[in-house]
């Protein structure tokens, strides 16, 4: 086995007492001593910080940069203006996902593409096969540029202490801005993977990332590991490559349009022109897919896990793609957050398209058939600063 890679914050994680694990070839903190539940709850009520320096950061520049990106990504790159970012997918030739990614336009003359850590080498090789056709360069900046996500209700207050009161970015999701935090240049993006209505992802020179990490902790942010990053994204209904994208439990490709979020990532705009698998994706959009990704909650007590079989009316209809128990805060009738917490068992299912949210499905949890049901969403993000749990009685 090759040696695991480490981010510049590795020593900081170890000093904080983190449990370090192999994540896509990186030695990363899955949790700190307080644990996943406490980290998840702190993020929802206060502010969580995440070392996301392991993710792949590619700089794309050159005369043909737009043409190249229009070809290899599903989004319309021309709809992006400087100071904005967009969610996109790198499609396979057969209409599945090589990876999902975020494209940032901080500068007029270049783009930054951020990809999943575990896919970075694969993505680089795949994108590399298209490069010779274009006057464009793709540079891997993952080692020189580090990244920290700052998420949760107190994220803005904390960052504004560092910015001397200056605005971090515009208010809209996907707004970008280059800012100065206590004399250091930081590129901020109003994005995140937690579902928190308030949160940024920051890009900073690798040599300054420890300084930023420590200042954020001093100001009240709590280090949050990959375990809580996963429970937060699951609660937010955000897909993860390798679970809701890529290959299914039996090795078949999951079509991009099986994920409802795809409609925001794929553009058939005339301006975009042709791209990898365009016609297949158009057909997926127009005709639907055989199976779909659906957020679900367990009705019976227990925990579902990725790979478990799902049945409906006695027939096998799919698999769980992600699942665990996540914590939540209760809110008063007037909307204020309380000290009371609960836990709920939630996940994603990849099931036959004929299964609806109203259907009660059964999940084989190590021989026990547990009842589950689709939901519209697990989290209400429309009442900032909090992301509020949508519990069964509040549905519809």
């Amino acid at each position, binding site marked *: 086995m090759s040696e695991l890679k480490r981010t510049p914050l590795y020593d900081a994680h170890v000093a904080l007492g983190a*449990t370090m694990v192999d994540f896509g070839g990186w030695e990363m903190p*899955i*949790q700190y001593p307080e*644990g*996943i*539940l*406490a980290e998840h709850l702190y993020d929802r009520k206060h502010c969580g910080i995440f070392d996301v320096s392991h993710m792949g950061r590619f700089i794309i520049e050159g005369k043909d940069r737009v043409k190249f990106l229009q070809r290899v990504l599903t989004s319309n790159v021309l709809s992006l203006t400087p100071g904005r970012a967009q969610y996109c997918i790198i499609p396979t030739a057969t209409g599945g996902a090589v990876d999902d990614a975020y494209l940032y336009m901080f500068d007029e003359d270049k783009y930054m593409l951020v990809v999943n850590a575990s896919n970075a080498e694969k993505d680089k090789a795949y994108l590399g096969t298209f490069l010779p056709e274009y006057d464009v360069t793709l540079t891997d900046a993952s080692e020189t540029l580090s990244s920290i996500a700052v998420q949760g209700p107190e994220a803005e207050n904390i960052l504004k202490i560092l910015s001397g009161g200056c605005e971090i970015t515009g208010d809209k999701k996907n707004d970008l801005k280059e800012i100065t935090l206590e004399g250091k240049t930081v590129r901020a993006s109003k994005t995140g993977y937690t579902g928190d209505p308030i949160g940024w992802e920051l890009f900073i020179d690798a040599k300054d990332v420890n300084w930023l990490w420590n200042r954020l902790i001093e100001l009240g942010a709590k280090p949050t590991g990959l*375990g809580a990053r996963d*429970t937060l994204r699951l609660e937010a209904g955000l897909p993860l490559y390798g679970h809701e994208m890529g290959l299914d439990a039996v090795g078949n490709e999951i079509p991009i349009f099986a994920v409802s979020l795809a409609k925001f990532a794929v553009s058939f705009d005339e301006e975009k022109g042709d791209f990898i698998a365009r016609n297949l994706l158009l057909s997926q959009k127009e005709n639907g897919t055989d199976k779909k990704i659906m957020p679900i909650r367990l009705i019976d*007590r*227990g*925990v579902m*896990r990725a790979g478990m079989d799902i049945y409906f009316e006695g027939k096998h209809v799919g698999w769980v793609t992600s699942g*665990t*128990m*996540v914590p939540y805060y209760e809110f008063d009738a007037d909307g204020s957050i309380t000290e009371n917490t609960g*836990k709920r*068992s939630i996940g994603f299912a990849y099931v036959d398209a004929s299964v609806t949210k109203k259907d009660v499905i059964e999940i084989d949890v*190590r021989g*026990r058939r547990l009842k589950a049901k689709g939901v519209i969403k697990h989290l209400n993000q429309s009442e900032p600063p909090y992301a509020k749990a949508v519990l069964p009685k509040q549905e519809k």
Partner: protein
Amino acid sequence: MNFPKDLKYASSHEWVKIENGVATVGISDFAQDALGDVVYVSLPNVGDKVKVGVSFGDVESVKAVSDLIAPVSGVVCEVNEELADAPENLNSDPYGAWIIKVEQVSEEADLLDSEAYEAHCAEEA
């Protein structure tokens, strides 16, 4: 990490205390720490038979699921029902939050004393 001297331990990280022919079984401090936040415990019923080396339930943490392996053979005579609503007790008080009590004990696994178990954990860590 705490390894009480008055308990015996299975290499699969359950602790056992046998008093007056009744074996009380739980999971060790090392086990709860490795699991992380426990969110669900699947328990057997009173009257169920358990057998050395065979799973009698499972413990779900946020991260993963882990089998509970019986360190003794016998008949379940009591189940800690509190764990159904408060599985986190396994994290906060692993030696207080017992899981099952077993009577008619007919067989014991090769159990370790606290010193040998501590050494076993040091190897696994």
